[in-house]
């Protein structure tokens, strides 16, 4: 059992221990197991990463043969190459931190062990997804992650609403998974292998036809959209906030939602040869980013704001992938994991302090009560808005730059990106001002309860805030690399798998600086507007809302996606099932096959038994009749 296999198996062991005997163990043992095992697997990942970074070759390990048929052979195999290393680091790193954070957050919850069992189960499936060497292993992780998120979203299952949200999440994910599985079938039909390396190699050499390539790419995109909550399969993400906040931090910020980007980057061989699909990815990403940001503006629930922000940021990543700049998308994924997790955990601390209150209108003025949380929240927000020197600036700017300069990109695309990042800044700081500044309109008795989160949670917030600050420097954009002469280790590390970022010529580099400046200006403008609307003139927000009127209504109802799905999908299915099938078809079938034949036979029985009149001479008449018939038959035929 080599170290690579241990990485996913340790969280599985954690799940089994906490799941089976967790309720009987004391809480500290459960916490130890839950935090220790992911940490151990983080250590293992770091060890392997160090070897890989020091010029090592990707480690692959075949556990066993899953299916060995005459022509369909697939093994249960893991592969630790550059892309997997980065994802593994993020998953195990952020995962362990969130486990630590959860110990404090869920301290007083009665099913403590069950929570950690589900969380480690999620880690196991995510690692399976990331380390999978072929599409089958990744799909196993893919759906496993779906069921883990179902269990975690519906963790407090007494409340029917939460369970409905969990169900919605799983079913929408399942729609995406159908796309994924169909793509896998198509890939096998043409490439004859499910192995990532084999697929990329095959499609690099022989592309059956543009239509086939685009179909495969679009099906993969459907799968990615399902998992990464991109339009049109994004409706489950806001409802997924029903789960505990650390869950949202882990699943709906750092790891699961980025699985889509991972899949796109993994199968870049397919996407690079499907130009039509690439444009769909780009504009899909851009549209999601923009709509996500607009929806974020109108939210009052703190976690929902962050959820829409995640959706928007991943839209940016999809945009980068669509432009062929997979490594840039990856870098943004890397940095986003840190600051978005920090934001969610910060929000968790706030909600924890206010005993479950999530509505920003009943918060305010928490900066005084929770200075440290406010500071980490501020750091992460600045990173998210792309203010230098925070990590977000470097990764988002690189995306905007490739939006401008890359082959698929165009100034219009860049403009959408910039406007969205401006809006991002606005809604983030709107949240900050509503939560941390201004009068504290929390109910009386809740006010005294406002306190800094316990040290276990604070430490995690600190680390993540620091990473949001420091993570940017390992992937400097082209201009700074030239100016400061530092190399970009992140991109160099990913080069063997995802290739180098598009090395624009020297002259074009000059254009990068003004774009960067514009982006920063947009962010600053967003922050100023938020400050102006929400702390200087709080009543302006109300006026703005009336004037927006119809637009505000549309946006706040999530562009009617939910309503459309309910009317187009859910209600017809129920109608079909209840009105048509249950009432008409089933009863018709029952009557047709069970009731009518029986009545027919009984009627025949009544008719036949009337033949028995009781008179002998009647019987004799039947005999004569029979005899006559036979004789006529005999005579005519002889």
């Amino acid at each position, binding site marked *: 059992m080599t170290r690579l296999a241990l990485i996913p198996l340790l969280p599985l062991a954690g799940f089994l221990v906490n799941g089976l005997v967790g309720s009987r163990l004391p809480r500290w043992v459960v916490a130890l197991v839950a935090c220790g095992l992911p940490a151990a697997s983080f250590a293992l990942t770091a060890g392997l990463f160090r070897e890989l970074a020091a010029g090592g070759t990707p480690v692959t390990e075949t556990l066993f043969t899953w299916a060995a048929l005459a022509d369909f052979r697939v093994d249960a195999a893991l592969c630790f190459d550059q892309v997997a290393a980065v994802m593994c680091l993020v998953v195990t790193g952020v995962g362990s931190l969130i486990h630590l954070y959860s110990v404090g957050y869920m301290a007083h919850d009665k099913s403590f062990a069950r929570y950690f069992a589900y969380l480690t189960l999620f880690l196991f499936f995510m690692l399976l997804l990331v380390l999978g060497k072929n599409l089958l292993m990744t799909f196993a992780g893919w759906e496993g992650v779906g069921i883990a998120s179902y269990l975690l979203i519906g963790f407090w299952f007494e409340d029917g609403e939460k369970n409905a949200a969990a169900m919605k999440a799983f079913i929408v994910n399942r729609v995406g998974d159908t796309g994924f599985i169909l793509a896998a079938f198509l890939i096998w039909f043409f490439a004859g292998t499910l192995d990532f390396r084999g697929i990329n190699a095959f499609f690099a050499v022989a592309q059956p036809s543009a239509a086939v390539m685009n179909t495969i790419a679009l099906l993969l995109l459907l799968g990615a959209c399902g998992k990464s909550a991109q339009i049109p399969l994004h409706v489950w993400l806001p409802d997924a906030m029903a789960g505990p906040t650390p869950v949202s931090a882990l699943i709906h910020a750092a790891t699961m939602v980025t699985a889509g980007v991972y899949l796109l980057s993994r199968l870049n061989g397919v996407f690079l040869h499907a130009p039509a699909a690439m444009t769909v990815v780009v504009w899909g990403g851009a549209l999601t980013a923009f709509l996500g940001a607009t929806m974020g503006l109108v939210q009052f629930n703190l976690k929902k704001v962050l959820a829409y922000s995640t959706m928007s940021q991943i839209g940016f990543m999809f945009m980068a992938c669509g432009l062929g700049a997979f490594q840039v998308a990856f870098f943004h994924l890397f940095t986003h994991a840190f600051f978005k997790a920090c934001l969610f955990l910060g929000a968790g601390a706030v909600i924890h302090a206010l005993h479950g209150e999530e509505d920003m209108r009943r918060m305010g003025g928490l900066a005084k009560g929770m200075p440290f949380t406010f500071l980490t929240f501020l750091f992460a927000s600045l990173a998210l808005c792309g203010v230098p020197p925070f990590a977000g600036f470097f990764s988002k700017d690189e995306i905007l730059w490739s939006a401008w300069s890359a082959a698929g990109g165009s100034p219009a695309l860049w403009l959408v990106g910039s406007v969205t990042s401006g809006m991002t800044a606005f809604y983030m700081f709107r949240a900050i001002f509503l939560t941390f500044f201004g009068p504290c309109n929390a109910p009386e008795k809740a006010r005294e309860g406002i306190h800094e989160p316990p040290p276990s949670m604070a430490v995690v917030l600190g680390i993540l805030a620091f990473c949001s600050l420091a993570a940017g420097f390992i992937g400097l954009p082209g201009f700074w690399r030239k100016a400061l002469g530092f190399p970009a280790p992140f991109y160099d590390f990913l080069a063997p798998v995802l290739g180098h970022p598009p090395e624009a010529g020297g002259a074009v580099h000059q254009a990068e600086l003004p774009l960067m400046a514009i982006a920063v200006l947009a962010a600053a403008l967003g922050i100023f507007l938020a400050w102006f609307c929400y702390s200087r003139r709080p009543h302006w927000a109300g006026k703005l809302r009336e004037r927006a009127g119809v637009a505000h209504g549309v946006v706040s109802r999530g562009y009617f996606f939910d309503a459309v799905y309910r009317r187009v999908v859910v209600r017809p299915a129920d109608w079909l099932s209840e009105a048509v099938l249950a009432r008409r078809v089933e009863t018709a079938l029952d009557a047709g096959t069970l009731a009518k034949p029986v009545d027919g036979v009984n009627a025949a029985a009544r008719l036949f*038994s009337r033949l*028995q*009149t*009781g*008179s*002998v*001479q009647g019987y*004799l*008449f039947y005999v*004569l009749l029979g005899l006559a018939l036979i004789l006529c038959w005999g005579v005519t035929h002889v």
Partner: protein
Amino acid sequence: MDRYQFLVALAGLIFAMGLLGVAIRRNLLVVMMCLEIMLNAVVLSFVTFAVRSQTLSGVAMTFFIYVAASCEIALAMAIVALLVKRNGSLDLSAHQDLKG
């Protein structure tokens, strides 16, 4: 149409009359008699064929037919006596209790 065919035709005719008699007549005793008529018709045909084919098995059959017929009539009369005692009438249509 030599006399054998005539005789056989006659036997057939008598047989048919007996059969119709059984089927139509109401009176129990008359029905019994018609049965006997049918058997006599059969005896006639047997004898005719015996003579035509100059073999004696037809004639032997006649004896057995009469043996069987007499036993049958004896039993039939006993049962008819039972029926008449039960319903008090010789009319066949009175004995129709079993039906359905």
